[in-house]
């Protein structure tokens, strides 16, 4: 009963639950960015083509398919890996080198 109460107050989640909570949050943010650049913008292919934004002089639609989105994915994965490592560190879940 006591345990149930503290859980409801949300203050005393176990270390593991808090870690998972943060990990999930990071996942949602990562997937949201991923969604925008892999699916979202391609609903607007025609608009991108007509747009006056022309990275390096390429039409925006062309640029996003051959460099833009691809490059963003590379950066996104490294950013995600860094953030996840920080979260793991915060909760003391960093691996030992010899694991």
């Amino acid at each position, binding site marked *: 009963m006591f345990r149930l109460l503290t859980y409801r107050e949300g203050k005393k989640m176990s270390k593991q639950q808090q870690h998972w909570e943060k990990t999930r949050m990071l996942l949602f943010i990562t997937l949201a960015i991923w969604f925008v650049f*892999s699916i979202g913008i391609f609903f607007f292919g025609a608009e991108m083509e007509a747009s006056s934004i022309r990275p390096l002089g390429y039409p925006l639609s062309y640029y996003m398919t051959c460099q833009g989105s691809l490059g963003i*994915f*590379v950066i996104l994965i490294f950013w*995600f*890996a860094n953030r996840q490592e920080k979260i793991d560190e915060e909760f003391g879940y960093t691996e030992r080198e010899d694991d």
Partner: protein
Amino acid sequence: MFKGKFIDNLPKIYGTYTGGFIVFIILMAIAEQAGMSAKLIGIFFVAFTVLIYALIGYLSRTMQTDAYYVAGRQVPTVFNGMATAADWMSGASFVAMAGGIYFKGYGYMALLVGWTGGYVLVASLLAPYLRKFGCYTVPDFIGTRYGGNMARLSAVIVLTVASFTYVTAQINATGTIASVALDIPFEIAVYVGLASILMCSMLGGMRAVTWTQVAQYIVLIIAYLLPVFWISNKMGAGVFPHLMLADEVARIAELEAQFGLGEVKNSAADLKQVPKGLSGITKAHAEVNTTPWKFISLAVCMMAGTASLPHVMMRYFTTPSVKAARRSVGWSLFFIFLLYSSAPMLATLSKLSLMDPNLATGIIGKSITEVQAIDWYQNWNQANLMFVSDFNGNGTLELNEFFMGGKAVVLATPEIAGLPYVISGLVAAGGMAAAMSTADGLVLAISNALSHDIYYKMINPRAETAKRLIVARVLLVLIGFAGATIAALEIQGILGSVIWAFDFAMSGLFFPLVLGVWWKRANAQGAVAGMLGGLIAGSAYLIAVRSGYPGFWGVTQLTFGIVGSLVSLVLMVVVSLMTKAPDAATQRMVDEVRIPSGKAILGKQH
């Protein structure tokens, strides 16, 4: 004698290797100037690189299970990234992709987005968790997480269907390249290709495949980038093509208008004369030429497929830690990005070389007899990859009268642009490396699943190490031969079957894998229903569409994974909720997987 030191010396070893390869290219270039024949240069390139891979394969031989299945879990982050990139980029990426972009433009570039975006899913949803699990194969994870031989068996079935579809295409590609470069008939070349593939994987399993894949990546990336940079500079288009081809893209649009792209339609009778598999330019180069849904559905299938293909996932089992697995996904995508961002540039340069009358290489607008007299035209026409015909009888070559095979864009462009033959030899070696590395990963994924999950875990759990590894090798050879036999029949094209493989993998494995980590309530019954139901629904849709059913939601035979995976998701959730929740031990296991530190779920030797 080789090992501990070997890992520390990797940068030095592969640095020397890269230097040696560049020296080899220069020597070949000198030999060409001295009068060595094109044929001989091609043979040297392919034979030399394949022998090196075989040597690496031999040096990496092993009799330990964790070295055979997961390369001893000591592959450093960056090198695993390179190996994954080679594992990933197949004959389709290397030989066919630029061609697809050349002919279909924007609509086709959905594959570029799909084949890279999928790695975000791999990094965030799966790879680190499966690495923590400590499994040897993907079905190993499914079998342990859900429990029971039925789940394990279902995963092996999906894995085999998807990977086998994929591998026949790759063996086909090695055969095509070997037959052109070594000048032997295709039916024999297929087995030459197979022999080279097996030499890399048989003695050392994953360990051998890892170190040959790194070597293959180095060859294939040099072979892809060198011509792109060279042609761009030769044409005066820009020192760094990726950043500087905007004017060329605009120029192509101008020429398309000038040559009346899409205005003149070829009659059916005219098109009958064109050899099978060749096509002309019918779509504008950089215009948005497809509906958003068509683009997005293809990209979605490729992304989910990426996250479900076992030969990619198992590469992340080889890193020393969970953290390294996560970072390694980033490096993989970086190394893939280097090639993928170059493919559209190659397509642009290739198209402009052929179209622009201001360039010496341009052929559109020239007289037909003049074009037919060009050396490279005659060569590639003989190889059935190029064709011209004067449909309107005016004596000049119009845009709609020139036809080319998709492969020719990568293979023939160096020659068209007037580069020395040594570059064409290099490109052949690169294509061989790309196809071999993927075939190796796939054959190994299938035979490991059969030897570890079926033989060891289900049939004979008490088999000793030596016996397990012999069974693994026998299966490897058998699967290789089965793949080569089917490849020799030449049933499907390379690209089509690769796309199907993604759809199969996505139909059966995507949700069972993801929910295995992210949904504790998922149980064995649900997973089995999801895997088999998804695979059956996807395959049924594919067969129906192939036999004339119009389909729904705009889902085509290239995107049937959407149907399969939705069925899989619904079945998995419904069946899981209708049956008993997983026991406490399983729930604890899932909790344990979510924490990067601590012991792996499965022991070091299992």
